[in-house]
């Protein structure tokens, strides 16, 4: 049971780090290389550019905390459980609460970006941004929900 849980957690982390996050990063790169929204004076484009920057920064911030603190802490929890060693007081519930806050913020930004696209008329540019918002809606939200279910049980 314990090993199953550890394996499931490890697989989930692997999936986030090696599958989901690179696909989001790739989409950000694609959007940047296709066009530069910041170079236009159009009000809607400016809004989209700001939202995209905000989304990118928040995403990088989340992945940075997860890579440096959250994932190692969760994996360490299994190690310490195995060794019955409680020297580091990792508070998984607090970490989860903080990351959920950031995930919630990311989803809000993605939803707003999605509604801004509906107002915009730049089709080529929009298709990459639409793809990004779809990844957040269909993949990020689903995998994060799965992740949160796993660590809630720890």
């Amino acid at each position, binding site marked *: 049971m314990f090993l199953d849980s550890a394996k499931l957690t490890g697989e989930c982390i692997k999936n986030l780090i090696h599958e989901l996050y690179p696909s989001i990063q790739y989409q950000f790169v694609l959007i940047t290389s296709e066009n530069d929204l910041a170079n236009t*004076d159009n*009000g809607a484009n400016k*809004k989209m550019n*700001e*939202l995209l920057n905000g989304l990118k*920064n928040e995403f*990088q*911030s989340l992945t*940075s*905390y997860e890579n*440096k*603190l*959250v994932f190692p*802490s969760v994996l360490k929890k299994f190690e310490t459980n195995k060794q019955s060693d409680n020297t*580091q*007081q*990792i*508070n998984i519930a*607090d*970490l989860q*609460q*903080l990351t959920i*806050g*950031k995930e*919630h*913020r990311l989803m*809000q*930004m993605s939803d*707003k970006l999605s509604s*801004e696209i509906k107002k915009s008329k730049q089709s080529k540019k929009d298709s990459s941004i639409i793809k990004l918002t779809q990844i957040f809606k269909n993949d990020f939200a689903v995998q994060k929900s799965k992740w949160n279910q796993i660590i809630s049980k720890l």
Partner: protein
Amino acid sequence: MSKSIDNPECLFCNTRMHSFFNVLDKSQLQLLTQHKSCAIFKKGQYVFNEQGLPHGLFCVNNGKIKLSTIGFDGKEQILRLAKSGDVIGYRALISNQRYHCSAIAIEDSSVCIIDKNFFFQTLENNNKLLFEIAKKIGNDLKIAEEHIVSLSQKNVRERVAEALLFLKATYGFAPDGQTINITLNREEIADYVGTSTESTIRFLSEFNHEKIIEISGKKIKIINLSKLTKTANLMD
């Protein structure tokens, strides 16, 4: 619909002295009067709409107008308030762009609308007016840049608070129940925040000053956890 009223003479308008039209001479002011119309906007009425095309320049004769836009969260964001003597809508008019915000009367207001073509002709022939407008635009730009800096700084403040909460959740407290159980130098904290060491030091000092945290060398004691959580703005 706004209600048209008789044109007040620009020559005798007290509020003109507070606008960039104060550099016009008597004959120019008489011409200005001929090329404008004046209207009353009831409270809540739109003087102009976001994304609308400018057809003239608006000079607030009396009352108060708010300039606002809809933010990313769908909420109204007030950019600034215009009062008696303020000229609005000139940025879009001069740059030949659509309005980036709406102007709405927040109390019954009288507003003079100056004809676009006349305004441009006057600009072409009047260096003093041109210079006054350049000064006004320069000042507006300064205010906007200060606003941008304050917004980005606010964001960094949130992120510094967030970093401390992550560190606390990961490493817990020392036996005193307040000190984060890890020693990190300012560069390492800045790396978590994703900002410069200087900014991180500045906000840590601010938190220290506001008694949210207490700094002792590399040790950080969280004095007011609820305020730190509120500052991080993550729990909405």
